[in-house]
Each structure stands twice: as C-alpha cells, then as structure tokens.
C-alpha cells in the first residue's frame, strides 16, 4: 500500500481539469456538432468528478446530490440537443458548424 501513491484531492482535481480541458478543446477544435456536443458532455463530467472528489474529501454528501442533478439535466439536454441536431441535419444534410452561418454580423 505504501508503494502506491495515495490519491489526494489534487489528483482528482488535476484529472478533472484535464477532462474539462479536453472537453473544451473538443468544443473549440472540432467541426462536427455531434463531436462538439460530446466535448460538452465531457466538461460536465469533469465537473461531476470534481464534485464527487470534493464531496468525498469534505465529507459532505451535498456534492453527490449535485452530481445527480447534473446527470439528469445533462440527459435532458442531450435529448433536446440531439433532436435539434437531427432536425437540422434533415434540413441541411450537414452537421458541420461552418455551414451554419446564415445568421451573422
């Protein structure tokens, strides 16, 4: 056990931040709406991770409760979002962001 590194709060947080950054990178760099959306889910999950970690180390269950809320909301969001993207795809036959520029300036 002693050889194993004790995983402290900051380790969880680092992972969480990395996850968040990955998600953000996905949002910023990818062109496909679906992929962007996946990045966004990643960001939410990074938050979940951080919450769980804090909850654990603060010995406060509220964080975990929050996570449930987030998961639920994310599910709802995904449902609406994917439906929207599908509707758009039906209309334009594309899910690329650069094709979505009829509203500008």
């Amino acid at each position: 056990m002693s050889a194993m590194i004790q995983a402290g709060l900051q380790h969880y947080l680092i992972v969480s931040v990395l996850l968040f950054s990955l998600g953000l990178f996905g949002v910023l760099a990818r062109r496909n709406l679906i992929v962007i959306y996946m990045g966004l889910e990643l960001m939410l999950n990074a938050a979940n991770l951080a919450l769980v970690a804090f909850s654990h180390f603060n010995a406060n269950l509220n964080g975990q409760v929050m996570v449930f809320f987030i998961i639920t909301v994310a599910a709802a969001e995904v449902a609406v979002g994917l439906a929207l993207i599908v509707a758009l795809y039906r209309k334009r036959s594309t899910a690329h962001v650069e094709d979505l520029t009829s509203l500008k300036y």
Partner: protein
Amino acid sequence: MEHANTTVTAAAPAFSSRPEDLAWFILLLPLIAAAGIAFFVRKSNVLSAVFSIGAVLAAFFLSVGLFITFGIGGEATVTTPFSWIHVGDLNVNLGVTVDRLSVLMLLVVTGVSALVQIYSIGYMHGDRSFSRFFSSLSLFTFSMLGIVLADNFVMMFVFWELVGLSSYLLIGFWYEKPSAGDAAKKAFLTNRIGDFGFLIGILMVWAATGSVSFAGIAHKLGADPAALGSMASIAGLLVFCGAMGKSAQFPLHVWLPDAMEGPTPVSALIHAATMVAAGVYMLCRTFFLYQVPAAWPGPLSFLGSISALDIIAVIGGFTALLAALIAIQQNDIKRILAYSTLSQLGYMVMAVGCGGPDAAMYHLTTHAGFKALLFLGAGSVIHACHHEQDIWKMGGLWSKLPVTFRTFAIGTAALAGLPILTSGFYSKDAILDAAITGGHPVLFGLGVLVAAMTTFYMLRLVIVAFFGAPRTEAAGHAHESPNSMIWPLIVLAVPSVAVAWLPLGDFLSAHFNPHFHPHEGGGIFGPFNHAPLAATFGTGALLFGAAAAFHLYWNAPKDPLPGQLGLIGRAMKNRFYFDEIYDGVLVPLHDMLARLADWFDRWIVSGLIIRGVHGSTELVGRALRLVQTGNLQTYTFMFAAGVAVVVMIALKLK
C-alpha cells in the same frame, strides 16, 4: 443732482401742469400720427397727410410756446417721470431736457418737418405709397425729437438708432429701385460703425461716473474733472464717433451722398436739416465731456495735451475741405447739395472742436433753414424737369421757375454767407471767430478757404442750372411746381434772411456760458465790430469765390474745370475714391473673415468633426459587427477566451 444751470425734477408725478411737460406732447404727437397712419388710415392718402401734418404742426406750435417761455428767461429743467431700466447701478430713466438748446432744436425740427411735409403733398402726389411716406416721416420726426429731448445717453442712443431706422426706411422708400435699397443699407451700416463707438463711449463714461444722465455726468465731472481717468479723451472721441456717423464726418461721410436716393423732401428734412445735425447737437449737448483736461492711456500718452476737441476740430475742418473739393466737381444737383451739407457739417464740428458749441448750434440752426430751402428748391427743379438731376442738362430755368429761382437764390446767398442780409453770414462768422478765439489759426484759414469754395460751387450750380440756354428738351418745357411745393419755399426763405436780425447767437452763448454778456455794439453790423478779422475774411472769400464762379461758368457750354485740374479733377469728381476704397478694402476684409469662418464651419466643424465622428462611429460599428461571424467555432473560441481574460483580470484585482 444739481447742475450749474439745470434743475432736475426726478420722478415727479407725470404731467403736472408745468410748461416743460408740453415737451412730452411734442415728442409723442408725431409717434401717434405715425402709428395712426400705419394702423388705421393706411388706405386714405388725404387722412394720412392730415394726420401727419396736423401732428407736426401742433408740435411746432407747442415748440413755439416753449421757445417763447424759455427764450424769455425760462429755467432749464429735466423731467424724468419714468424709470426705463433700473437694475444695480444702472439707472436709466425716460426724461426730457428742456433748455435753450433743446427748445431751439425743437423749433428747427418741427418747423422744417412741417414745411417739408406740406411740400411733400405736392412732391409725392400720385405715389402709391403716399401714406407710408407720411407715416415714415412722422416716425422720423418722433425719433429726432427724442434725440433733442433726451436727458441721458441711453435714451439718446435709443432715439439715435430710431433715427437711423427712419432714415433707412426713407432712403429706401423706393425700395424697388436697387440703388435705393443699396443706399439705405449703406447709410444704416455706416451709421452703425459710428454707433458702435458711441455705445462704447457711453459704457466708458457710465463706468467712470456711475451715471448715464447728462445732468448726473456733468455734475460728477464738475466736481471731479479727472473722474474719467486716463480714458477721458478716448471716451470723448468714442462718443464723437456717434456724431461722426450721423453727421457724416470723415471717414464715415460716404453714406450721405448716396442717401440722396431717397425722395427729395427726405433729403431736405433728414439729410440736410435735421438728422445730420444730430451729431453736432449731441456734441453740444455733451459738451461737458470735452471740457475736462486731456488725458490719454499709456500707449497713447505721446499725444500729451492734445485734447479730444482738437482732434474733433481737425476732423471737422478736414471734412469741410474734402467735401467742398468734391462738391466742386459734381454734376448731380442733389449731390452738390449733399456734399455742401457735408462741408457745412464739417464746419459745425470744427466749431465745436474749436470750443464754440454756440457757434456750431447757431450755424446748425441757420443751415437747417437754408439747406432745407435749397433741397426743396432742388426738388422743385427736379420735379419740373421730369426727374432730371444733372445740372448740365438744365439751363435757363430762372424764367420758367421764377419762385423756385428766387428762393433758391436766397438760399444760395445764405449758404455763401452774403454779409448783412443773410443768416448764413452771421453763423459762419461766429464759427470763424470761434476758430480764432479758440487759437486755431490754421483752421481759420481753412474755414475761409472752404467759404470761398462754397460760394464757388453754389454759384456754379446756380449759373449752370438757372442761366444760359436750356440744354435739354425737359429743361425747355419746365413748369413751375404746384402751390403746395412753392409755399414752403417761400416760408423757408424768410428765416434765411430774417434770423439774421435775431440775437440767436447770444441766446445760445448764454446757454453754454452762464456768465455770458452780449457784445456791445450788436445789431446787424455786429460781426464787423467785435470780430472784424472773421467778418472781413469771410466777405473776402465770398467775393473771391463769386468772381471765380462767374468767370468760369457764365455761359459755359460744359465744365471747363476738369481740363484744367486734370488728375485732381478726376479724383474730385470721383469723390476721392472713398467708396472704392471701402468697397475694395473694408467690405472684402469682413467678407473674407466671414468666408473663412464659413469655410471652417463647413469643412472642419460640420465636415471633419461632425461628419467625421458620425462616419467613424458608423465605420467602427460596421467593423465591430464583423466579429459576429455567425460561425459557432468563433463564438466558442471567443467565449473561452473571454472566460480566460475575465478570470485573469479578476484575479489580478487582488
């Protein structure tokens, strides 16, 4: 508020039964007539004339009453029943001064005005703006009486401007003629230059003495002659600026000849007898301002003991000479008379400058009579010759217009100063005498020279216009004018002779000098007794001028002078190019500044700045909205960048 020979009745109940309150009626009657004509009887020519003439005649008789009262030892009074503006230490009352100066002037103004108005019935007959003419004349009479009666600077300035307005209206009476419109404009603006100085002068005097009323200022200056400080002479000269405008002194004389565009009765009344004399009257009224010791501010201290009066005298003398020179080479009958008026005004101003306000007023009075006569006579001639004004297109009129000729001759004699018989002799003599006693020998010589020239150009006019053979059809068929025009001529001819035998000079001298005693050995030969030098030289000048005129012009088919005088003659004929200089220098200068301001406003303020701000704002808006590319990728990127920036700034705020 006690002045040497003035009693001030401040804030007395309006119109008690004192005789001097008549002055208010004299003042207001013409105004009522003017308003009545303008508002009620505009459509009726007869009623207009009746209103106007009735008012001025009534005013005249009231003036006669006042004159008699004051002529026989009445005491000068100032009545100030109305407060016009009273705020802080600015206290302006509406008041009238009734003293020898003003009652005499009242008489002149109402008298000449009445005669001119009667004359106008004939002269303006058939004009479609007949009633407007009488309304304007009444307005003018009112304004002029206001100047005469004013008891303070502000009130005088008010009427000063109103006189300017009525003169503007009357010069531009035939406004459809472009030249009339231009002349009216020029007269008004030139006068305004003078008024500008006048106003500044008033402000200076007020600041130094704390009063605008003549009595108050005179009292203050009497107690402390140095009250005006180093600006004493400047203030005097600035006030004189007003007189320079109204009395058409060099260099503001250019408007008067042009003013002859107005109907001839107007020229007679305003531009010969009354308004142009206002400047001289004002100088006499405010003579106390010039009796203080000369004082100049630092930069002008080199002027030393030269007083404002000296400068005024020189300006007056110069104007007299200049105008006489020009008059010699004019051919328009009214212009000759106009320049003659200028010259005589210069004479009067010179008299004031030489310390002889009584002489100036004397000449003013006599001049008003005979110059009005000459103008009305000229009007009669012009009327008879179908509006021909060039004397070289007349000739032989003496037999066709007998009354006009005789009265015109009397006027000419008076202007030339025919000894003993005419009033002009006495007043001119008083001026020449004042120049000597005032210690101005050069000006005396100049006066004599001008006197000779006056005789010369007046005789030139008479000889060319009335003698010889008619040079045109119109002159050949001339008829004597109607009675309404003839009678005023005859009436005016009377004072040109009769005033000569009244002790008017003494009457005036007593006003300016309470210790004045009439000269021994007065009577009609008085001048030869107590001012022999002036009288002799004056008579000599008359004879010389007359001889020269007869020599050159008797039976001359055309003017021989231009050939002999050459370049100078041309300059004289062209009025020494003053109009050209003004038109070429002063007007363009102001126009250029205006053009510059306009350019600046159009291109810099409205263009560069306002349109620039407008345009650049719009440009920034257009550029900025390009950020909104419509591309989600850009948006998310900016969002993330924004988060980073906000977090960084927020944490820096620590």
